[in-house]
């Protein structure tokens, strides 16, 4: 027993001294003196990329915000608030991002509801609202015409798909299931591949740790293109295929980032170290890296950003021009033409933005200045993509109506946000922070700083009583019940409104069929009558008493009936002058309802420009109502 106590004391002393040494090393380490100055920059870059340099103590990273060090009295006072401020800034960023995201999605929900109602008139939008009257430039008009034709062809193709037979639908369903299974398998294999590669890299120490990031970036470029080609087999609508490509590509990106993060995390975080125990084992496999948060930020987030930038620059400035050159030289070979034709894909590049946003949300905790790096990255990428669109790519961009695509992309972003939130909850609430660096070194978990501030752990405090009550079933069960009831109310109301709209459409259709039948009967009698202009009022009275079945007159072309009725109407107008109905009808038909405001001026009458309207008159309705 004495021996074990002695050993325990030795271990305690050793661990304490190791901890102090680690702290001192982290805070006061200096760069080794390099004699050959030409190698200095190379070593610095390698250290930075490798994630082992003292640059991790810079302001960009988590390790810089350390409170427990040699400080003056002023800094000590500030040091008390630093953990809370750090936590508050992370929470503020997440809350503001969530609010903005929800607001944008709410604007798009109006459009989703409109699409779901089935009342979207794609062709009326294309034909009647297809030209933007703000265009002044001839070149712009020419480009818009080309784009409009492309849109219309896509819409016509989609309209043809509405009338598919059952056999074709079944075949399509089988194809879609196969494609779905294949793409899921590919995504799974990609994630497994990234995990294995990063495992090899970290165990054998090759490639400066860049290989996982490179594999992630390459898969993010190649796989979305494969998904785009494969989605053509599924023959979905434009919105459907856009959504599928988006979610599949987003899955690849998120999985690859998650797998890489997990790999680096398990390597650097290691097994949970018990306090006051010796961590210096021979194989050194479960020693937690000092300041693992900064290493994670540098190891994953920075590297992914740098490799993506390098890869995109290589593709835009080297590979794509080479492909274009191949097409020009071997334009007779079909494969070369296919390789050399480059089109700008809006969805693929939008997914890049979502990916960067996700990394920004994650990276803000581990490297508070990471969003600044992302801003610089985005500015550079903008000019690279501009070059790609203007120089490399050809043809019209794909027909994506901006408002509809935005909603799909924002929904993908919301899903990514929820995953990021779960990850950050685990990091802030369950993982032990670094003991040697960072603002949360003195806390068991980072969230404790908020609990201490709010005095939630003190059972006598008001905050504890409030939180305890809010977290109890007596609050959240009724809230859940009320939310579900409200959702059900809106769902059933929208269904009822849909049914009402359908029944009104059917009524309008049936009314017109009645009208056409009556009119066709009248026309037949008029045409077959021996006298030139018969008394039609008598004939209408005869028809009124008859039992009339529904349906239009066979053989009568659509539109021909209304034209004949218009001619007949004018004939009747010219002949009958004593009829009261005709007088009224004449006055309503030919008088242009200008509302002229009389101005007592030298220059005479002026029109009231706001209400000058010529109302289009429905000849058919006048005729039938007048006669009946």
């Amino acid at each position, binding site marked *: 027993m004495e021996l074990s106590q002695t050993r325990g004391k030795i271990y305690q002393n050793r661990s304490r001294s190791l901890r102090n040494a680690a702290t001192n090393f982290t805070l006061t380490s200096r760069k080794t003196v390099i004699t050959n100055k030409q190698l200095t920059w190379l070593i610095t870059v390698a250290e930075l990329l490798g994630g082992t340099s003292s640059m991790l103590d810079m302001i960009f990273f988590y390790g810089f915000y350390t409170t427990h060090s040699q400080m003056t009295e002023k800094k000590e006072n500030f040091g008390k608030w630093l953990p809370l401020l750090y936590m508050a800034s992370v929470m503020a960023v997440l809350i503001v991002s969530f609010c903005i995201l929800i607001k944008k999605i709410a604007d798009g929900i109006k459009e989703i509801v409109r699409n779901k109602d089935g009342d979207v008139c794609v062709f009326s*939008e294309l034909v009647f609202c297809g030209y933007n009257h703000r265009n002044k430039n001839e070149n712009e008009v020419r480009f818009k015409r080309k784009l409009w034709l492309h849109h219309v062809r896509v819409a016509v193709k989609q309209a043809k798909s509405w009338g598919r037979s059952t056999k074709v639908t079944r075949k399509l369903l089988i194809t879609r299931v196969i494609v779905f299974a294949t793409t899921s398998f590919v995504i799974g294999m990609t994630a497994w591949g990234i995990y294995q590669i990063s495992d090899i890299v970290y165990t054998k120490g090759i490639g400066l740790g860049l290989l996982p990031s490179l594999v992630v970036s390459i898969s993010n470029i190649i796989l979305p293109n494969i998904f785009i080609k494969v989605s053509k087999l599924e023959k979905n609508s434009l919105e459907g295929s856009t959504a599928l490509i988006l979610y599949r590509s987003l899955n690849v990106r998120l999985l690859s980032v998650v797998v890489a993060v997990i790999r680096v995390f398990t390597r650097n975080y290691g097994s949970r170290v018990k306090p006051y125990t010796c961590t210096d084992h021979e194989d050194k496999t479960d020693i937690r890296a000092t300041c693992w948060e900064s290493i994670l930020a540098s190891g994953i987030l920075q590297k992914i950003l740098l490799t993506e930038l390098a890869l995109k620059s290589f593709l835009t400035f080297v590979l794509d021009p080479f492909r274009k050159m191949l097409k020009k030289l071997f334009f007779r070979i079909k494969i070369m033409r296919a390789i050399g034709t480059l089109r700008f894909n809006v969805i693929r590049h939008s997914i890049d933005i979502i990916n960067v946003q996700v990394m920004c949300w994650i990276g803000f905790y581990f490297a508070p200045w990471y969003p600044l790096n992302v801003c610089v990255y985005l500015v550079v990428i903008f000019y690279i993509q501009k070059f790609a669109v203007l120089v490399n790519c050809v043809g019209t961009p794909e027909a994506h109506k901006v408002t509809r695509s935005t909603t799909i992309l924002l929904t993908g972003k919301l899903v990514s946000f929820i995953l990021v939130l779960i990850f950050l909850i685990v990091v802030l609430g369950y993982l032990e922070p670094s003991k040697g660096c960072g603002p949360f070194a003195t806390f068991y978990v980072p969230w404790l700083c908020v609990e201490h501030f709010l005095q939630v752990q003190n059972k006598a405090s008001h905050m504890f009583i409030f939180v305890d009550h809010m977290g109890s079933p007596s609050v959240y069960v009724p809230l859940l019940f009320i939310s579900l009831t409200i959702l059900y109310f809106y769902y059933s109301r929208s269904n009822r409104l849909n049914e009402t709209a359908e029944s009104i459409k059917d009524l309008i259709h049936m009314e017109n069929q009645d009208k056409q039948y009556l009119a066709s009967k009248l026309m037949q009698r008029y045409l077959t009558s021996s006298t030139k202009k018969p008394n039609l009022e008598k004939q209408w009275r005869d028809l009124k008493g008859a039992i009339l079945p529904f349906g239009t007159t066979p053989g009568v072309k659509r539109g021909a009936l209304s034209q004949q009725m218009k001619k007949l109407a004018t004939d009747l107008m010219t002949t009958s002058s004593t009829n009261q109905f005709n007088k009224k009808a004449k006055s309503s038909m030919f008088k242009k309802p200008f509302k002229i405001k009389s101005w007592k001026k030298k220059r005479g009458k002026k029109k009231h420009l706001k209400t000058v309207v010529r109302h289009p008159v429905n000849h058919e309705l006048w005729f039938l109502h007048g006669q009946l």
Partner: protein
Amino acid sequence: MGTIFGKGLYTRKEITEYTTITYLTRNEIEHLLVKFMKLASSQIKADNQYRVPLGVLMEYPEFGANPFGDRLCKTFSSTGDGSLDFEDFLNCVSTFNFKAPMDTKIEYIFQMYDFDNDGEIGDDDIKETIRRLVGERFEYTPVEEICIALNKQTDLDSAGGISFTEFKAACAKNLDFQEIFKINIF
């Protein structure tokens, strides 16, 4: 009060009256007067009620580049021949202002698309609209299919043409309607 652009043209008070009866501000009306005068300055200076003919109006960029420029002029022309005086011109720009209500815009736009002035948009009107939208690529456009699909979606009562009510119902569902039918003044 005095005149703004020489004698015989509009006084300050008249410009103020125009601001009350249109959806334009004073600055916008003055700017439009300058633009309108550039089309036929000597004739307008001589007679401020001068009607600029259709051929001259097509030199105005918003009408010239617009495939429906001539239809716009004919719709807003009080004589129906496509010539516009300054009040007709103001009426046109005011209707295409963002402050103008949707109902007013839809009524004028319906007349713009009703090429044969029969009170409804038939197949011929639709074909003419497509021809103007597409330009020289009209031969490669699936016009018949567009007409069938459009009538199926918009012609609710299957009357053979799109009536004003049906046109209004179709246009009102477009969220970008106000942005599309807008003429920039400056």
